[in-house]
């Protein structure tokens, strides 16, 4: 495979008064799948469109395999793209859609048909190859679009929220399939999504964006367990905000002092950011520091929602087999199972 490194260096883009991208720097290694994750309007789609050549940048350089492609026309970039909305050519059958890029590259007819059918087989649509887009389901259409993008043996695969229009079940299947294909073909991939679960599930690295810049880019594990900022901490996964008092680099929470990760030398009222699974709930009749409000059984784990006497609502996630006797109204003792916590200043 001819995949290469993709580099975005100092990319900026404005639309009138709005800053869509503000000096964005991003490097995607050869064969790597990087997701850009962020709320709508954070600039992630603009970044992808600039890489594709469908949008121009005000400043900055896009490099593909050390070659400057910033001013190269979209049709010369050799990047495969899958769009959020269905983008198949309605007048062409599935196999003809997949062939399109090869036809533009003047691949001889028999040869390109063969390659297109192989790709349709790869995405599991052999029997639907002669169908037209309107005869295919949404998931099938996106599979064809994926096959079409891969047919040109792209140096970079660009996925612009390719799953957001699909049902939950189809979405999960297709994302696994995208990852499987991407790994086996070793295609450098940029994946834009607003769905954190999707991004975390299949990416080598996830870049969290806000207001046109990258807040943090790292592996899903690091992002989740070690967020660099409160924005990332809040955006990725569920987060409790527990009111507490900070003194120096220590914060007191549920009667225990824990080291603060970003002390900033501030003392006073803060919110301690703790994930639900880092909170331990134990029965403590009469001597607890919170009361159970509800317990939701989620299968292997259960979600316990508690409230402290001060009124803070705290969410905990624990194995179901140890939480069966936590009934609403029960006195419980909460504690944080962390040696270091992130705080947000209130």
């Amino acid at each position, binding site marked *: 495979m001819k995949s290469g490194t993709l580099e975005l260096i100092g990319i900026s883009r404005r639309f009138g008064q709005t800053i869509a991208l503000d000096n964005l720097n991003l490097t995607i290694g050869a064969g790597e799948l990087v997701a850009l994750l962020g709320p709508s309007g954070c600039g992630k789609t603009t970044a992808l469109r600039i890489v*594709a*050549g*469908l949008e121009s940048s005000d400043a900055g350089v896009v490099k593909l395999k050390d070659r400057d492609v910033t001013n190269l*026309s*979209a*049709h*010369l*970039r*050799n*990047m*495969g*793209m899958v*769009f959020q*909305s*269905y*983008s*198949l*050519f*309605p*007048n062409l*059958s599935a196999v003809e859609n997949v062939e*399109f*890029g090869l*036809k*533009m*590259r003047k691949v001889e007819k028999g040869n390109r048909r063969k390659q297109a059918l192989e790709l349709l087989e790869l995405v599991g649509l052999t029997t639907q190859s*002669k*169908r*037209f887009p309107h*005869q295919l389901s949404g998931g099938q259409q996106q599979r064809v*679009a994926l096959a*079409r*993008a891969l047919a*040109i043996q792209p140096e970079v695969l*660009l996925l612009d929220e390719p799953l957001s229009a699909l049902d939950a079940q189809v979405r999960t299947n297709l994302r696994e399939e995208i990852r499987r294909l991407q790994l086996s073909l070793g295609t450098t991939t940029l994946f834009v999504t607003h769905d954190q679960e999707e991004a975390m599930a299949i990416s080598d690295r996830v870049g969290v964006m806000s207001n046109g810049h990258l807040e943090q880019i790292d592996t899903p594990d690091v992002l989740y367990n070690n967020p660099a900022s409160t924005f990332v901490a809040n955006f990725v996964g569920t987060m409790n905000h527990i009111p507490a008092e900070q003194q120096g680099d220590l914060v007191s929470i549920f009667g225990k002092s824990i080291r603060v990760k970003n002390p900033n030398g501030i003392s006073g009222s803060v919110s301690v950011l703790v994930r639900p699974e880092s909170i331990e709930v134990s029965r403590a009749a009469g001597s607890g520091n919170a009361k159970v409000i509800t317990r939701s059984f989620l299968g292997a784990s259960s979600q316990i929602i508690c409230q402290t006497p001060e009124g803070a609502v705290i969410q905990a996630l624990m194995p179901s087999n140890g939480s069966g006797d936590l009934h609403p109204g029960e006195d419980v003792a909460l504690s944080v199972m962390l040696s270091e916590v992130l705080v947000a200043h209130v």
Partner: protein
Amino acid sequence: MKKSLSIALPSTLAIAALFIFLPFGSSAEFSFRSYSPEGKLMHSFAPYQWILQQPEFMSHLLLSFKLSLIAVAFTAILVVPSVAWLHLKAQSFRSIIEVVTILPLVIPVVALSIGVQAAFPDWLQSTEYELPLMYVILSLPFTFRILDNGLQAIPLKTISEASRGLGANWPKTIIFVIAPVMRSAVAGAFFLTFALSLGEFTLTSLLHWDTFPTWVTSVSQQNIIGAIALSVFSLTVAFVVLLLVGLFSSQTKKRTEVAE
């Protein structure tokens, strides 16, 4: 409810059919009339033979055909790409353009013909080739709407971006992607332009050009049966053309479905 509908629909259709076929049938009957030397009414092909004997018949018909085809060509070169561009790059102007395109229906033809002609350079004003350009403007209210509706159903922007991403430059994107998906709308626009141009009388007459419709009118002054025969003839031709277009488009539709 349902019962009244089931009566309403056929009766509406029947009235519509009467409205169309009664005048047509009467005209057809009239167009075959001729009178024996004793003044007796007969039916024969004489009026049609008379048409063919008119040296001006063919020349006017061919001129009208030629001008109509040129109007279609202008629609293809000017209107189709403009509407496509509007959908691709200037969606915000669509509603304004929609209003502007209805003007040819609102402005009286007298005002329109003089106004538009004044905008043409002198060399164009002095040839009959100014007519096709006027025909394009006159058919805009219809052609714009056909093309606009056709494009509304297609995510033109996304599929043209997809095409470019797959290695097609703009010309190839237009030929292989945009044109094919617009085909039926374009065919409709072409047909309407052609039919409108072929039958256009008011503007042509106002500008003192002599095409098939204006010739038919002048014929009616001397030979009313011949003029009606001409009208029946052109209506039949138009009907056949319509039928062929209809057959053609339903055939391509079938082909798409069979391909499953």
